């Protein structure tokens, strides 16, 4: 029985407590449902896209505080963004915007990055030719990606 939320900063707590842009669209232009099989966390991101720009982004998430905060932050970051700039968002961008995440929680922001990638792929699928080929170079998860499976007497 352990948890690691004690090191969350103010921005993380704020986005966890007051998540922005919760929900989805009746007719989204792009949807992504991504999950982290290791922890069971899932994030659904829906986008409304107009003229190559993210007009609105909404999310739903099941997960820890960091996953919720990262999803919420992502939706605020990408609103008004051009689709080609979306490609440049990595989990680092999200984690930095949150004022940092504890190392053990960095992976939660990867979920957000993956949601963006998936949403873009979905957009392309729905409207072939509307977008240039994707940039497949992936950003590594960073130091938080190693297993930490210590056990304590609790």
């Amino acid at each position, binding site marked *: *029985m352990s948890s*690691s*939320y004690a090191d969350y900063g103010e921005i993380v707590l704020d986005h966890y407590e007051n998540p922005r842009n919760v929900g989805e669209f009746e007719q989204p232009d792009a949807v992504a449902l991504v999950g982290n099989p290791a922890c069971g966390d*899932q994030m659904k991101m829906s986008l409304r896209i107009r003229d190559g720009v993210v007009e609105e982004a909404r999310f739903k998430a099941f997960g820890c505080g960091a996953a919720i905060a990262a999803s919420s932050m992502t939706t605020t970051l990408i609103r008004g963004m051009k689709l080609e700039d979306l490609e440049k968002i990595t989990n680092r961008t999200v984690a930095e915007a949150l004022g940092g995440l504890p190392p053990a929680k960095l992976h939660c922001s990867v979920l957000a990055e993956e949601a963006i990638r998936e949403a873009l792929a979905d957009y392309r699928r729905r409207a072939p030719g509307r977008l240039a080929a994707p940039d497949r170079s992936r950003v590594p998860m960073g130091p*938080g990606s190693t297993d930490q499976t210590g056990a304590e007497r609790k």
Partner: protein
Amino acid sequence: MDHHATTPVLPEVLDAMLPFLKEDFGNASSTTHLYGKRASDAVEAARRHVADLFSASPSEIVFTSGATESDNLAIRGAARAARAKGDHIVTCAIEHEAVLETCHELESEGFRVTRLPVDRHGWVDPESVLRALTPRTILVSIHAANNEIGTIEPIADIGRIARERGLLFHTDAAQAAGRIPLDVEAMSVDLLAMSAHKMYGPKGVGALYVRKRTPLEAQVHGGGQEKKRRSGTLNVPGIVGLGKAAEVAMRDMTGESARLAALRDDLWRRISSSIEGVTMNGHPVHRLPNNLNVTVKHAEGEAMLMALRDAAALSTGSACASGAMRGSYVLRALGVAEDDAHSALRFGLGRSNTAEQIETIAGRLQRAVARLRALSPFHEGAEARGGATRVV
């Protein structure tokens, strides 16, 4: 509300300890002078209080650094001492790591270990113990109560089975000691491990009850303290604190346990009536008076903890670190589905908890769960299909 992890030191325990950190700093082994004599008298008084808690005799109490060391000493010490007789140990799947890891290590020395499964309430069937025994069995180790789900094991029945066959019976009573009555005679226990800090005593001190004439190989060698069963200069202030904690636990057990059980039941009633899709983990009847472990479907454990963070310190059935789930092996052994293990919360009530707190927490939890479920893509999927399966 995380009193399974640890408890604060009671003021009266601290008061008892202080003189032995200040003026009475003597070494309990140096009884030739006054300081040493005072220390050794205090240690012996503490030994009596600890013994009383288990209806044992003081000479059967060995002081250690805590339940982890006590478990190590009991299992490894007894197994090695009985090596000539056999090499088989019976334990169960939901024991604390102090037991499981020690057994694991003994396997590398050639011992064989049977880890009994538990039923969905975390209960070890005495019949399964009986069936697991072989002519090579030397030791049975089953904990008195589980730290996560609070299930109290039928140790009197298991003890009888072990005794009838001349086997040693060890029980890890770290969670049970001071919370429920434990009688080593009535329960046929030969070795019993406990810690002070789980019952309002200091950290870093505990005891092992060792029935008279139980063969036990020492694990810590040196000055021959504790009748050569555990060497090392005695932690006098710690031991005095342990003794006081045992005395207080004995004095208050009946009243405090009844009070906590009532609070716990109230908490469960409030949670289960205000939140849909909650289940209780652990035994519905045979459980520690202060323990409640619940699964709240479609609400993630850590997110729930966060929502309650300034109302109560709690722990969850599993937390995820760096993308690797630290799943609870206890919940898994009960057959709790992987998804539900992410949604478990453990309440460990203690002295400081009050009825108002219970009300606050139940209310906060209800609001948190509503908020988290509104956020969750699972919940919506589950509702749409009228089931609880998860959306992938």
